[in-house]
């Protein structure tokens, strides 16, 4: 038995023939990431989380010629691979389930080093033991582990620089999402709403791992905001997905998940702040500058954890700093990201729980659309109109590309059974899912400032694959059956597809190395990269 908590396993297994100039990635370089489209420097490609690449080598005319460049398989894959890599100067930093980080030569797939935490008695309630990606800044790779540690690794070797416990995994805190590294800081959220943990969002010193501040997303009893919870102990509101950052406004944007228990809200009358909300945070003071709650008193498990997308576009002839958010509840929202003001919103899938949004963007809820003891058919389904995957925004087409999930569930309300944090899931209900033939998916292009659909490409089933938009005029995504494909960004016409043999469960990215544009995605437990021959 290994007795140390974590052990770095830095394996220089294969030395690439061509030298790789690994340069550091200072904060200033990430701010200007759009000026170096060869690299993919943050989880979402840039701080705005747009998942848009300026690369133009692949176009609607030549994308049909894409061929496999290389494939990588983790030596001992376990569970869903849901990773989205970061690529810096020919090196890809990618994660493997549950919490392994591997550096690959981005041109060949050769493994340069790998690091795995030693995990013991992991508690993971209501979530898969997987990891969605790392953050890179200066010469350090940051990863959060399933047992709720935040770890800084040397980018050249995988050696541990520091290892900080974010929260107590025994209570149900677990991390699958990517950190956000900026301006000497690293921010990270956690999962655990199904274990009824108290949601938190942390900021750490990037050099030392010392915690600079913490925001609790739900109040303690008696604190301001607790009046939105009745007499219950506020719980949930976890921060398990990616955040975005606006360097000029110096605001971080992060979504929060469902209140606990999920499907029986009887004991928590009120709006349950700040669950199912978007928080805009001043990272200097660690305070919430504004919030926008999408789904007050949520009872369908529709977390507002989707990665927000920041973009600048005119509305009514006036330039605006905006934030686009395709919510699990079925509505697309446009907010003013400086003030939190609601700008526009409309459904992007079939939804049967709200008549619409009022002038402030709050849902006009249709009565009796919550869970019931016998089951109440409501759209979208329990897994939502979208779940953890990322959307993309193209400043070229000014369209917002979403992988929409058209599906309903019979929502069932169960009793509020006794629970103890970390020991018992806080469900109090569940779903009876519709059959696969009664559901479908679609890649939809929305007018980013209104949500109005411009085109759609239908999918056989609701997918778990994000979208990637490129300046070359392409949108890439995939299917749950195993197809990876490219669409025309303007028309939605399918241009190329390949069957990869197992479900795709990741966000594709693109990068360039050695003068060649590559597209990356995972399927099953294999990591695929495509390029022109």
């Amino acid at each position, binding site marked *: 038995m290994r007795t140390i908590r974590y052990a770095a396993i830095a394996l220089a297994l294969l030395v690439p023939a061509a030298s790789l100039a690994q340069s550091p990635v200072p904060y200033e370089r990430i701010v200007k990431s759009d000026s170096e489209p060869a690299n993919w420097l943050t989880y979402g490609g840039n701080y705005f989380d747009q998942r848009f690449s300026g690369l133009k080598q692949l176009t609607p005319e030549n994308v049909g010629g894409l061929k496999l460049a290389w494939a990588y398989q983790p030596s001992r894959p376990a569970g869903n691979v849901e990773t989205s890599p970061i690529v810096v100067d020919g090196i890809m930093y990618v994660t493997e389930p549950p919490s392994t980080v591997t550096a690959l030569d981005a041109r060949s797939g050769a493994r340069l080093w790998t690091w795995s935490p030693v995990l013991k008695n*992991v508690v993971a309630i209501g979530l898969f033991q997987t990891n969605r990606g790392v953050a890179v800044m200066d010469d350090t790779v940051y990863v959060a582990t399933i047992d709720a540690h935040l770890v800084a690794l040397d980018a050249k070797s995988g050696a541990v620089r520091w290892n900080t416990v974010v929260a107590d995994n025994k209570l149900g805190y677990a991390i699958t999402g990517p950190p956000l590294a900026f301006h000497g800081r690293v921010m990270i959220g956690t999962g655990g709403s*199904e274990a009824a943990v108290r949601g938190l969002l942390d900021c750490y010193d990037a050099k030392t791992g010392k915690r600079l501040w913490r925001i609790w997303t739900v109040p303690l009893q008696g604190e301001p905001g607790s009046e939105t919870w009745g007499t219950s102990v506020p719980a949930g509101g976890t921060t398990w997905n990616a955040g975005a950052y606006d360097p000029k406004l110096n605001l971080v944007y992060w979504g929060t998940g469902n209140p606990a228990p999920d499907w029986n809200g009887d004991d928590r009358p009120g709006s349950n702040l700040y669950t199912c909300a978007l928080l805009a945070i001043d990272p200097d003071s660690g305070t919430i500058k504004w919030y926008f709650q999408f789904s007050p008193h949520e009872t369908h498990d529709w977390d507002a954890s989707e990665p927000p997308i920041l973009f600048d576009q005119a509305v009514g002839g006036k330039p605006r700093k905006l934030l686009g958010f395709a919510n699990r509840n079925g509505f697309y929202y446009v907010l003013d990201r400086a003030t939190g003001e609601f700008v526009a919103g409309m459904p992007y899938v079939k939804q049967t729980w709200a008549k619409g949004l009022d002038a402030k963007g709050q849902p006009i809820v249709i009565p009796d659309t919550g869970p019931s003891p016998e089951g109440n058919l409501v759209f979208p389904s329990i897994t939502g109109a979208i779940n953890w995957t990322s959307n993309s925004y193209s400043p070229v087409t000014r369209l917002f590309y979403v992988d929409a999930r058209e599906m309903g569930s019979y929502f069932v309300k*169960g009793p509020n059974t006794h629970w103890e944090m970390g020991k018992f899931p806080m469900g109090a209900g569940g779903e009876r899912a519709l059959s696969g033939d009664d559901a479908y998916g679609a890649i939809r292009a929305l007018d980013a400032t209104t949500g109005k659909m411009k085109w759609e490409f239908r999918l056989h089933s609701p997918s778990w694959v994000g979208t990637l938009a490129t300046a070359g005029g392409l949108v890439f995504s995939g299917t749950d059956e195993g197809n990876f494909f490219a669409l025309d960004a303007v028309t939605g016409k399918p241009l190329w597809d390949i*069957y990869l043999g197992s479900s795709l469960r990741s966000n594709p990215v693109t990068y360039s190395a050695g003068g060649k544009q590559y597209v990356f995605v995972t399927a099953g437990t294999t990591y695929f990269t495509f390029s022109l021959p």
Partner: protein
Amino acid sequence: MKAFRDRRSDLALGVAAAALLFALAPGAQAQIPRDTTPVVAKTSPADIAAGKVRYEAICARCHGLDGGGSDGPSLQGAPDRLGDQEVGNILRSGIPGTGMNGFAMSADEAGQVVGYIRTLGRTADAEVAKGDPAKGKAVYESSACSNCHIISGQGGGVGPELTRVGAMRGPSYLRATLLTPGAILPKEAGAMERGRFTQFLFVHVVTKDGRSFDGTRAYEDSFTISIKDATGRFHTFRKLDVQEYEKLPGRSVMPSFKGTLSDAQIDDLVAYLSSLKGPAAQ
């Protein structure tokens, strides 16, 4: 509670499914409670009711209220496939490297949950077939059923295998299928985070160059559809090359035996099919 917290590492689980998952889990370690009391399904009405409460509190989130699978896999039939003891082990110890966590409960409580899981998705307990299985076997053979169906390795593979059909389906379901094939179609087993598609769905495809095909859907994704026609031949199409694609629930490549067989013969055939339970559970 102590059993849940205080675990020791032990990779010597003697059950294939769990052992495979353990072997595949990097850095993960087995989580075995010290309480090694055997788990036996408890099936009194009071036990099943207690198991239902616990199931709906902890299991339904991922496995569905009907056990048909949701985020997690289908549990319908799991105690038959794995045994009560193993389902109980997984309930209490989890499967490292997956979303399946262990949950604090005694062997008796686990037995109640297993007892309730045994009731999920089961149509075979509803009624007892009234015909004569031996006569039904003769009807099966004289009706050319084996041209399309396989029992214990013998027969043709156009339709579904029937080796264990009596363990899977109840007499009323079998009767309805013989009289109106395609009327009630089974769903595929639950997969991770995926809706369960209808199996043996009859579809009609017309290609852009005017060719027409009928058959059972064998495979479908966003770009491809494969069907198996009444002769067992597969046809695969790119959806971009398809002019018309219709799902026709209610139809089937299997003929109805209504009017072809007498009521007594149908009863006997149902009794024979109901007797097919496959190899004994391990």
